[in-house]
């Protein structure tokens, strides 16, 4: 078994171990959940070292082959990583680990099952990014749906069942379209291996067919990203799922949408995406502004962050639509950056909920007085979210706009309105909550404990690290972006 297989299936170890722990051992369950979740984190660290060493990580086990006429078709177990997927894998293991730590403080119901589902979810996401063919990608993609459904419906807030239901319907719809697309590709190309598919479509395939497939991918991953008007499921999940789960949902799961759009959409069908560029750009622009303006009028902190996510995913779309190096790199940066920032915001939401039991803005005011640390981290996360230079959000937004201004300057200029609006809605929400006079409706709340500071600090260090020296990631991505855009490869 190779390192990548170990990485992907390492959460399964935790799942199995947990089957044998008695339900009542609450403390033990919590502690071992954290320890076992460190496994994928360590494994991903090893993968990173191997990758930086230029060692090959690819694995292949023959699985299913069948012959139709003279064609030999195969569906195999193939894993590999490139810069893009590796960055997302690191994001997954880091946020997953921090989300589990957060859960140990806030989840008090059916602990064992909760962590088992978290293990499964983790495995699904890691598989999605480590897969090297569409078939395997799809299987892991489906695996993520199931634990997520239960995590929302069982541990969520007031409207949890509705949220879980919407989640499954929308994602199921996306999966269906994705499956049709993948099946069609399999029939045409005779393989679902990424490199082979890309090679096939570079040489063959009529433009109309490619356009159709590109559109199917746009739709399928657009639901995941999400693109207006397919976003309402995601708002529900943001608001009603437990904050620790939203850390993974907003931090990593939504990024599968960006990953699919860039790696499969742009990677396989560059010409078709070129003709769809205007459409994608308009959709991105609309997402950006629609999300921003809606975030401005929300009454609940979690809805503000939900619409903020929609707005920031609009920036990913804008980057994709530019179809040049800067645009794609910006979109990738934005995925990573937003993942970190969203995780930090929802970590803080979890800590806030544990103290005040509400995220309604009109009930929160002057928190900086009693909880200066919590307020300070909220402000730092908000600044990251509004793209302050020196933090990751700025690098991604700048790179995207650099790319899109080259291709569609007018549209890009309208998009810069979003840069102003993020400041408006983020400051409105955060300052309402932390500045002003203190309201004592929720009693004397305690500030963050020393241990509670850790996840916020880790995330903040990553955010600032990327913002101060973006080449730390940028160098890893150069080759991948060239491959995706078909430059020199």
């Amino acid at each position, binding site marked *: 078994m190779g390192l990548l297989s170990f990485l992907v299936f390492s959460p399964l170890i935790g799942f199995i171990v947990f089957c044998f722990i008695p339900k009542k051992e609450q403390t033990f369950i919590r502690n071992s959940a954290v320890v076992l979740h460190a496994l994928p984190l360590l494994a991903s660290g090893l993968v990173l070292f191997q990758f930086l060493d230029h060692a090959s990580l690819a694995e292949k086990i023959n699985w299913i082959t069948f012959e139709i006429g003279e064609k030999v078709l195969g569906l195999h177990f193939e894993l590999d990583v490139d810069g893009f997927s590796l960055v997302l894998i690191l994001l997954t293991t880091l946020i997953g680990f921090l989300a589990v730590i957060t859960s140990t403080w806030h989840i008090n119901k059916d602990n064992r099952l909760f962590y088992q589902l978290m293990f499964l979810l983790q495995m699904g996401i890691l598989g999605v990014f480590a897969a090297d063919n569409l078939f395997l990608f799809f299987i892991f993609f489906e695996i993520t749906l199931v634990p997520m459904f239960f995590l929302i419906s069982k541990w969520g807030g007031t409207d949890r069942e509705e949220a879980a*239901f*919407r989640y499954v*319907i*929308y994602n199921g*719809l996306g999966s269906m379209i994705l499956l049709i697309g993948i099946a069609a590709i399999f029939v045409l190309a005779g393989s679902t291996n990424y490199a082979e598919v890309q090679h096939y479509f570079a040489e063959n395939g009529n433009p109309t067919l490619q356009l159709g497939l590109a559109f199917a991918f746009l739709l399928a991953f657009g639901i995941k990203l999400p693109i*207006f*008007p397919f*976003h*309402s*499921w995601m708002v529900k999940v943001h608001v009603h799922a437990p904050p620790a789960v939203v850390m993974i949902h907003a931090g990593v799961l939504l990024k599968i949408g960006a990953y699919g759009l860039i790696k499969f959409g742009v990677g396989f069908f560059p010409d078709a995406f070129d003709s769809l560029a205007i459409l994608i750009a308009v959709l991105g622009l609309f997402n950006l502004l*629609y999300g921003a*303006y*809606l975030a*401005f*009028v929300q009454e609940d902190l979690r809805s503000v962050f939900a619409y903020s996510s929609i707005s920031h995913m609009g920036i990913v779309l804008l980057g994709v639509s530019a179809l040049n*190096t*800067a645009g794609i*790199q910006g979109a990738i940066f934005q995925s990573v950056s937003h993942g970190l920032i969203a995780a930090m915001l929802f970590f803080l939401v979890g800590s806030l909920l544990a103290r005040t039991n509400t995220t309604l803005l009109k009930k929160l005011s*002057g928190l*900086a*007085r009693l909880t*200066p640390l919590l307020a300070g981290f909220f402000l730092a996360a908000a*600044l990251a979210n509004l793209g*302050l*230079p*020196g933090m990751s959000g*700025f*690098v991604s937004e*700048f*790179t995207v*706009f*650099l790319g899109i*201004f*080259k291709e569609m*300057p007018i549209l890009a*200029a309208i998009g*810069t*309105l979003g*840069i*102003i*609006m993020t*400041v*408006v809605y983020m*400051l*409105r929400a955060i*300052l309402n909550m*932390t*500045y*002003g*006079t*203190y309201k004592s409706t929720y009693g004397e709340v305690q500030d963050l404990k020393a241990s509670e500071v850790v996840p916020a600090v880790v995330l903040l260090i990553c955010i600032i690290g990327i913002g101060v*020296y*973006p*080449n730390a990631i*940028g*160098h890893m991505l*150069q080759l991948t*972006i*060239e491959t995706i855009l078909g*430059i020199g490869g």
Partner: protein
Amino acid sequence: MIYLAWLIPVVPFVSFLCLLWMRKAARSLASWFAVAASAITFGLTLAVFFASFQQGTFTQEWSWLTIGSIDITFGVLLNPLNSLMLLLVSFISFLIHVYSMGYMKGDSRISVYYGYLGLFTSAMLGLVLSPNLLQFYMFWELVGLGSFLLIGFYFYKNSAKQAAKKAFIMTRIGDVGLLIGLILLFWQTNSLRFTDIYTSITAGQVEAGMVTLIAILIFIGAIGKSGQFPLHTWLPDAMEGPTPVSALIHAATMVAAGVYLVAVMYPLYMASAIALTVVACVGAFTAIYAATIGLVQNDIKQVLAYSTISQLGYMMLAMGVLGYTAGVFHLFTHAFFKALLFLAAGSVIHALHTQNIKEMGGLNKKLKVTSFSFLVGALAISGFPLLSGFFSKEEILAAVWADGQYVLFFVALGAAFLTSLYMFRLYFLVFRGEPKKSLDHIQEAPIGMKATMVVLAIFALGIGYVNTPWFGTFLGDWLTEGASFLTGGHHSSPVWIMLAATIVSLGGIALAYYIYEGKKVDQGNWKQSFSGTYRMLSRNYYIDEFYELTFVKGTRGLGMAFHYIEMYVVSGMMDMIQGFFFSIGKTGSKTQNGQTQTYGAVAFLGLVLFMAFYIWKGGY
């Protein structure tokens, strides 16, 4: 020594991190720690300044972000203009640090205060050292952050919260202009390095329309930061911050960064007559517009804030009429006398615990050093002969005249008159006349505050002599030497301009004396007969109300419109999709009715279909 230039912004940043990390534990030592850090920064700056004085231009760069074949760098640049700014910023920052020891004494969040001050200083120094426009932009936003944090330092006050938010948003609006400008410029010149940009522009590689567009977009950034009309409304509100902060950020350094930006990008403006005219007109208009508002404010800091806006307009005007040296010179002198005025005002506030000038009066008996310092500052800003402001203002007026902008010349002259009028209104009302309240318990500021005021007063008196028509134009020569794009050096101005400037300045002072000291005019009567004008001026020409009605309400309205779309259209569609799957499920479950006849029928139908398909395709 010059290789350590990158350390200059790092030192205050480390101080920021340490102070925030320790917070409560460091409360008693915070001020000493921060003052030491700023002293080290100033020392480093001095060393680097002299090194660059000898060595000339110096650049150091590291790779920062690679995007395909594009390589964006990070680094430091030293040339005459920015080493001058570097010195100015670190010196005034050091003085403010010292002054704050007295002013902020006893504040429970003093470590946070000094931490933010360090963050701001670091960002401002980073901005000045930037060798390329992107790095400049990044620090430009970070100084905005420092300003935002310090305006909102008294976070529990609702007014401070609103002011901080407003400052961030208004400057962000300007920043977007700068961002668009820099991206467009990048695709024109394929580089963001200042030197590369200069080369491309002066070689005429960018077409004229594009140059104008980019220059104006970048100027929008300067408008936001330097409180120029119409993005000026945040600056008076920014007075919510502690007064030393107003002196450092909202008078001497950050707000002048807009003027500095125009100076840094000067080749771009020189290549576009339209852009220059825009700069000049906006500057001149702001200068006179803010001065009129300054006449009627009753809050001592508000008067100074409008005065700052007006003086920044003056600098912009100079930039717009090819008076590069004049603009930078005025930036330089203004930093000293305006910081001095703010610190003196701070000393008054510290002693009286009020900012309302109607509650002051006769303070010169009790606050001797403060009163003297304020007088020096007021004389300097009014352009009283032989003080620093006199030389820089005269140079600006000369530049405007030399450029042939006669209308703007008289506007500038008018603004100069109003400046000395409102400054001496302030002086007479606050320091002269009869006290409104008992002054028995009033005490002069502690030694640290007094010392900084005296140092600044000395500079406000003498700093003008670095660039005079009589004793040599050292500053002008040095700036011109460093900037090859500047054609002419000092304008040999007609003597009558100097005379006119003097008359205007003295006239304003005399009128203020006549009204406020001599009490020759019934002010109540005046307010009655000009009540409309008075209200309009004191309410800032209703600009805030206008923005509230249009932009703020408009944004909210659009947000609500989207909200209704979200509620009815999107969720309606959502329900449809949901309903569709429900009905599939329902239909599906109906077939599972347990009746074998139905199952049989379905199975038979299926078989028929298969057969038909088989026959049609003629076997597989």
